[in-house]
């Protein structure tokens, strides 16, 4: 889960290995806000798989790559 200057740099870094998924950092920030926003809340509870999947789905991170186990 790394940061790159551009998609070209991702391609160069992969060096022919199977690709994963790339999103821009604006989307990453949205994801981080939704995923970690309550991490320090006194009433924090573990999310269910469905709750976590909903966060991904609502940000358009769908498909088999983004499907939690």
């Amino acid at each position, binding site marked *: *889960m790394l*940061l790159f*200057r551009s998609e070209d740099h991702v391609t160069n870094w992969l060096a022919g290995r199977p690709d994963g998924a790339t999103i821009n950092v604006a989307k990453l920030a*949205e994801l981080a806000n939704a995923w970690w926003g309550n*991490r*320090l809340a006194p009433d*924090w509870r573990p999310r269910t798989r*469905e709750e976590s999947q909903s966060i991904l789905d609502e940000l358009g991170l769908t498909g088999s*790559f*983004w499907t939690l186990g």
Partner: protein
Amino acid sequence: MIAWTMDAADLDLRNATYRLFVTLGRAPSAWETATVTGRSEAGVREGWRRLHDAHGLVLDGGEIRMANPFAAQPTPFRVEAAGRSWFANCGWDAFGIGAALHVDSTIYTDCADCHQPLEIHVHGGRPDSEDLVFHVLVPAHAWWNDIGYT
């Protein structure tokens, strides 16, 4: 990913551990956590092990390795926020520290390909460098198979 459960005592321990991580700017020791929570050091370690098994935090040799998004050891992702500095486990977690604290943050890292230093300012939950990209190599169903690698 399983719907993990934690009992109230372990949730209290988890929350106290996170509070210490934030306050200290580093991972707390079992002794420090025991002192704050009124537990024995052995009791803290037993609770941490249960939390590790429930994905509430990540241990390495009995010590805290990750209390996501915070990393116990130096990583290529350093985050300044609220006048303090922490390390994050990955690019996602680097954005997660400001998100968890609900404050603006600055992320210091580098491009994983060319290693050019990157400094990302996050204001109001939005980065100032939207041309950068984030890459995930491991598919979501396998994230917890080896969370260190992920």
